[in-house]
C-alpha cells in the first residue's frame, strides 16, 4: 500500500514536470527533433547527466540491484519504430496521458494506438521473434 501511494505521488510529479517542461507539446517535440529549438534536448541531456552520479551514490549505499539491459535483436528495430511514432504523434508513452490531462483530447487516439501496438507486438513476438526484450518492471 505504501509503495502504491508513493508511486502515485511520483506519477503526479512526473506528469506535472513533463507538462511544464513542454514535452507534451507536439510543437516542442518537433522543434527538438529538427534542432530548431534545443531547449528540450538540453533538458533531457541535463537530466541524464544529473542522474549518472546518483547511481554511483546508490551503489555506494548498497542500493544498486538493477537488471542488466543488454542488446537484443529488437533493440534497434523497436527503437526506430518508436522514434517514428513519437515524431508523428508527438507522444512517448507517458506523454499521451499528460496530454489528456492538459485537455488535448486527441491523445485518446494515441493511447488507443499505444495499447493496440503493444498488444500486437505481444501477439507477434512468440510467433515470429521470441528473444527476451527485457523490461524496466523487473527492477
Amino acid at each position, binding site marked *: 500500500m505504501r509503495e502504491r501511494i508513493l*508511486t502515485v505521488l511520483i506519477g503526479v*510529479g512526473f*506528469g506535472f*514536470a513533463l507538462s511544464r517542461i513542454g514535452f507534451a507539446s507536439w510543437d516542442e517535440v518537433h522543434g527538438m527533433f529538427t534542432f530548431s529549438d534545443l531547449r528540450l534536448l538540453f533538458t533531457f541531456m541535463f537530466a541524464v547527466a544529473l542522474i549518472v552520479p546518483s547511481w554511483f551514490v546508490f551503489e555506494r549505499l548498497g542500493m544498486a540491484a538493477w537488471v542488466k539491459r543488454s542488446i537484443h535483436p529488437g533493440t534497434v528495430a523497436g527503437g526506430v519504430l518508436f522514434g517514428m511514432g513519437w515524431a*508523428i504523434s508527438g507522444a512517448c508513452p*507517458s506523454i*499521451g496521458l499528460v496530454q489528456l490531462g492538459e485537455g488535448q483530447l486527441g491523445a485518446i487516439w494515441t493511447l488507443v*494506438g499505444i*495499447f493496440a501496438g503493444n498488444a500486437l507486438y505481444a501477439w507477434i513476438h512468440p510467433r515470429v521473434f521470441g528473444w527476451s526484450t527485457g523490461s*524496466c518492471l523487473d527492477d
Partner: protein
Amino acid sequence: MTDPSFWPWFVGGAVLAAVPILNWAIVRRTLAVSGRFTGLVDRIRLGPTEDTDMTEADMVAALQAMTEEAFGPDAIDSDLADPTAASDAKPRPRQDSYTHVLFLLALVVGGFLATLMTGDPAITMGLDSKLFAKTFGEDPAIQALVLAGGGVLVGFGTRMSGGCTSGHGLCGLSRFQPGSALSTASFFGAGIATSFILQVMW
C-alpha cells in the same frame, strides 16, 4: 517558437532527473512507463498470473532447478548466484496492475494540475498545436488516424525495444546499459529523421 511559460532547460532537467532518482530512493524501482502498458496488456491477455504470489527466493530456486534440469548443472552461471553483482540482479516481483493503472492516471492528474496552475485549462479535440494541423490537415478523422497510427508505432516499438524514454532514455542510458544506449540512439535518430521528413510536407 518556445512557449515562454515552459521551464528553461536547467530547471526542467533538474526536475526531470529528480523523478527517477526519487523513484529509486523511495520505491527502489526503475521509472517505467511503456513497461506498465505491457503489464496491463498482459494482464488483459493472460489474466492474473500466479507467479506474483511467489517470493523472490522461491522464484530463483525454481528457475535454477528448471535450468539445471534442462541444461545440466554447468549451465548455472556462478556470477548470477552472486547477489552483490549489481548488473546481474535477479528480478524483483513486479508491481501489480492496479499500481500500473494508478500510475498512468497520476500522469493525467499531473498534466491537469500543471495546466490548472499555469494557464486557463482549455479542451481541444485534437492536439493543442498549429504545426500538427498544418502538417496533417484540419480534418479530425485524418488527425485521429494519424495519432492512432503513431500510437501503434509507439506501443509496438517500445515493447519490441523493451523500454521507452523513461526506462531506456533516462534510467538505462545514465547507468551505461548497452541496450538502453542503443535503443535511445535508435529512437532519437528515427525521431529526427521522421520529423525532417514531416517538415518537407508543409
